[in-house]
């Protein structure tokens, strides 16, 4: 079995890339994609940790998988919602550039 640390490195790398994407991208769609990337980085981390964990008794510990599935569900809903919002913004303002969507500031 591959050592847990490699999974964690992969997860961390994906997370940082996602974070960079959120901070650096201007397009709202790309930001949403970057957030998805971060969520999946967390999923990898969770599942890796869960599969490396010693089961108690005859049953393996499913906590990690459980949370991962939960996250996938929430992420799906979140993407739907986020894209809908982005669509509305585009209809209204003909752009999805977050630098131009700055009405809610002082």
């Amino acid at each position, binding site marked *: 079995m591959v050592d847990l640390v490699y999974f964690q490195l992969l997860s961390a790398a994906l997370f940082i890339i996602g*974070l960079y994407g*959120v*901070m*650096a991208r201007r397009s709202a769609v790309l*930001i949403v994609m970057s957030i998805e990337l971060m969520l999946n980085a967390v999923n990898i981390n969770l599942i890796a940790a869960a599969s490396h964990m010693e089961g108690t008794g005859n049953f393996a510990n499913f906590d990690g998988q459980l949370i991962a599935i939960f996250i996938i569900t929430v992420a799906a809903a979140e993407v739907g919602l986020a894209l809908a919002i982005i669509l509305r913004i585009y209809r209204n303002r003909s752009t999805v550039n*977050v*630098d131009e969507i*700055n*009405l*809610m*500031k*002082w």
Partner: protein
Amino acid sequence: MEWAWLIPVFSFAAAPMIVIFGRFLPGKGAILSILAIGGGFAVFWFVLDSWLGANAGTSGCFTSENTGMLTCDYERSWFNAGVAGAVGSVSLHWGILIDPLTIAMLGLVTFVALMVQVYSLAYMKGDPRFGWYFAVHSLFAAAMLTLVLADNFLMLYVAWELVGICSYLLIGFWHERPAAREAAKKAFIVTRIGDVGLLIGILLIWREVGTFSMLDAFEAVRTGAMSQGVTTVAAILLFLGAMGKSAQVPFHVWLPDAMEGPTPVSALIHAATMVIAGVFLVARTFPLFEAYDADPLIVVAIVGLVTALGAATIALVATDLKRILAYSTISHLGLMMLSLGAFGYTAAIFHLMAHGFSKALLFLGAGSVLHSTEFQETGEMGGLRKVMPVTAIVFSIGALSLGGIPILAGFWSKDEILVAVNDNRNVTFIVLTLFTALLSAIYMGRAMFLVFFGPLKDQNSHAHESPILMTLPMILLGVLALGFGLISFNWPGSFGGIGTFIFFGHGESFHFEVWLGALSIIMAVGAFIAAYMIYVRNSFSLEGVRARNSGFLKIVENKYYFDEVYQWTIDRVVLVFSRFIAYFDRAIVNDIIVNGPADATRKFGILIRLHVTGHVYTYTLAMAIGSVGLGLFVWLRVV
């Protein structure tokens, strides 16, 4: 007797009914008002009858150890403020207290109010607010009747203020006239100053005794539960309220101005309601005044004497007929207070009633004159007995009665006062009281002779006698002013004179100090003869006296400059102080305390809003740094 509460309730019910249904009824609802007060007058006789038949065993009745009179108290619980029976909770009651003082007042108020209302039917005829006049009249009488029936201070205070507001409404009845508006405001505000004292006094008694019940308060004073200091202060505070209502110096200024109201209103205010409320209050709470060394009574006596003397001198030089009567009322109220201050409880109440009948009569007579001639200045009148004989006769009866001519009501009551003052106060008091009595006879004679005697002026040749609705009440009051004094004697039979009916401590039958009586008769008769010589015969002129005393005359004619002093005080002290307070309010309260925090909040907001850049990456960066910081913090804590 427990049905005595019906007396005010009739009139209380009549007032709103006149306002709402009056327009559909004959006489715009005046009939309701008269029926209500007439019903009250009828119930008064039942109350008197059942009181005379009552004894200490009758339900609710007992012989009061505080006043010595048979007293009946009926009360119903109203509500509890706080948990019943718990410490600090107050239970409030409706209640009526019936003793001879109450009965005397009930009779006076219902009778005079009835007479005045009947009179008003004719006097106010054609007034656009005829119905409203009777509605307020009803409320006025109801408030006064509640005041005399109240068995606790709270009810008394409510009725007291109701009386005040009704007087405001009636004095300002013709509010199209600026003078009437001013007079109404003055009456209300000046009496309010005294009312503050009354309220504080009531609260002080409540704090000491724990209930508003008057009987409990008297009991607390008698048993010593209320200390001398508190009792004295409470009595003085109550007297402050009484001074305001009863127009005692220095709160007397509102009463002469109250002449701006319709004349029957003046009759009511001066005789049956309003001004006698103060005298009644002192009489009702007499156990507080008389307790311990009776120190407050000295104050009462001095204020009464100063008022009586000062007002009598002003009445002597006033030229407006109604103002002469107004100052005469103030003077006689002073005499009543003086009498109370000299332990003359019976005399004060007796004089209150005798004066009430006489003064109602005089005002109704004056109203009759004004109605017919449209003049108020005595200089414009004269010789009116030729055209209005009935008014002339009844007015003269009232004037002679107040002037103290024997067998008329005012003589006996004034004599009782003189006896009380002579017995209980020092020689200065009796001399000044006699002098006041003399002045009283002179100004009464002056008013009577100036108006009804001498040659008739051409401008008044069209004057005519008033209609029967106006003369009948005057005649009835005239009969009382004539004969009321006779109840002071111990007649053969069970009636032992008024002194065994209304008294404080123990009943006394009528007694007469021969030298005082003789002196007062000589003075009164002499004064009337002198007035006749001066004002009718012109036997001798007062010009010399006027010229020699022009300085003093000027002071008296300007009413001792009370109004000017008040005006100066308001302009130079009250308003200046108010302006300072207003400045304080603007500069400190508004600008610093209210606007200060608002300003600081706004400035702080301007400062911290800078972090809201509108750029997603700013927020993301902040979030990332925050998460890392939080992670580091937890990690460091764990390790």
